[in-house]
């Protein structure tokens, strides 16, 4: 049954991808990409990767699609016809694909429990991590503790993206007299619902942030969800009012602070005599040390991701000509 669902989803993905190749309407292309992301999130769920699915849904289908739509609003929505010969790309792709298929022929069979990857490193994560790290969610244990350095790198990647977007677009503040016109001011219904929903979203973000040790979730997803709440706010009430709530400067500091918080935990553990990011030494008892470490670094990730996603949105939003929406 699981295989059947898998197959149907994969077929839908293939159709979506093919459709995207031939469509010229970029708006449709971007929406189909959002669908592609959602479908792959579903596949991740059916392949037991709940944390990944959560992230893919919030990032791929959420943030990426929003940013792409924002770009389209500024660059126009149809792709022009072109006389490019598509032969060379096709050859490259066929050769690469053939190489990959050749590579799959020796792969360990899909889903078999005795594949090398289930027998070497991973068993320790599965068997020992609840004892060594003390968390039921193994993904969080591996992410935050065993491979904590990767996660720090990931936080820094997000931070670098913010630096890139800020240097490219900057956040332009609008003059005061323009501010009254921006946003969906006329939409009474939207205002009421947004006011109702935004606290719920933020509450949910906090839940995801601090429940990530026990269920799917963690700093990254929480950061994106919290950013989504503020994005909704600035869509409905206009960027100037959003700037008044969280100003771009504050976001800069927050983004930097999150990275420093993460690296700071590593430095503290170095000062306490352990290796970098060794949480065991943070408290008298290694398990509680791991707990402290993971909670703090997840908080660092959450803060940075929230700040970065929101400033990226600000950067795109402040570019847009808002005169067409009223």
């Amino acid at each position, binding site marked *: 049954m699981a295989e059947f669902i898998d197959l149907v989803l994969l077929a839908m993905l293939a159709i979506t991808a093919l459709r995207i190749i031939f469509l010229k309407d970029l708006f449709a292309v971007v929406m189909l990409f959002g669908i592609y992301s959602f479908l792959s999130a579903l596949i991740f769920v059916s*392949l037991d990767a709940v944390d990944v699915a959560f992230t893919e849904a919030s990032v791929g289908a959420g943030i990426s699609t929003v940013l792409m739509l924002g770009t389209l609003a500024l660059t126009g929505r149809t792709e022009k016809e072109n006389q490019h010969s598509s032969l060379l*790309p096709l050859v490259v792709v066929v050769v690469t694909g053939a190489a990959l298929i050749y590579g799959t022929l020796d792969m360990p069979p899909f889903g078999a429990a005795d594949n090398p990857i289930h027998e070497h490193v991973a068993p320790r994560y599965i068997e020992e991590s609840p004892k060594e790290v003390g968390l039921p969610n193994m993904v969080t244990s591996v992410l935050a503790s065993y491979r904590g350095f990767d996660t720090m790198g990931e936080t820094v990647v997000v931070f670098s*993206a913010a630096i890139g977007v800020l240097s490219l677009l900057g956040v332009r503040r609008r003059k005061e007299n323009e501010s009254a016109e921006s946003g969906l001011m006329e939409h009474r219904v939207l205002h009421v619902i947004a006011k109702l929903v935004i606290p719920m979203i933020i509450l949910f973000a906090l839940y995801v942030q601090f429940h990530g040790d026990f269920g799917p979730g963690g700093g990254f997803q929480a950061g994106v969800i919290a950013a989504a709440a503020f994005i909704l706010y600035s869509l409905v009430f206009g960027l100037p009012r959003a700037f008044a709530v969280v100003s771009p400067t504050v976001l800069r500091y927050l983004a930097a602070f999150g990275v420093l918080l993460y690296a700071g935990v590593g430095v503290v553990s170095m000062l306490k005599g352990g290796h970098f990011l060794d949480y065991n030494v943070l408290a008298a008892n290694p398990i509680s040390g791991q707990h402290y470490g993971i909670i703090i670094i997840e908080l660092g990730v959450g803060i940075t991701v929230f700040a970065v996603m929101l400033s990226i949105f600000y950067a795109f939003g402040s570019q847009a000509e808002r005169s067409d929406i009223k």
Partner: protein
Amino acid sequence: MNHVLDYYNYWIVVFLMMSGFYIVISANNLVKKIVGLNIFQTSVFMLYISMGKVSGGTAPIVVEGVTQYSNPLPHVLILTAIVVGVATTAVGLSLIVRIKRAYGTVEENEFENKDDAI
């Protein structure tokens, strides 16, 4: 037949990857290129997640009475990779916005003609 059952998942994923890759290298519109890049990457993520699956296993969150879990390591790697992907997308898209402002177009062959070579 056994072969097909073992590998069908990987083959479709390879097909998806290659459609993304094709969009990246053949598209003329920059936004579409970025979409292609995302599809390419998302499909690579599927490759990783597929290898982590254990038939009959459950999500790697400790539950009483379950002994067979899927492999958590690919999940962790892909969480990181997704973030890297969105970071690249954001930077790429802001470049597109700037290119539009500087050249007035986001079609590759059009702005190529507007400058001298190199």
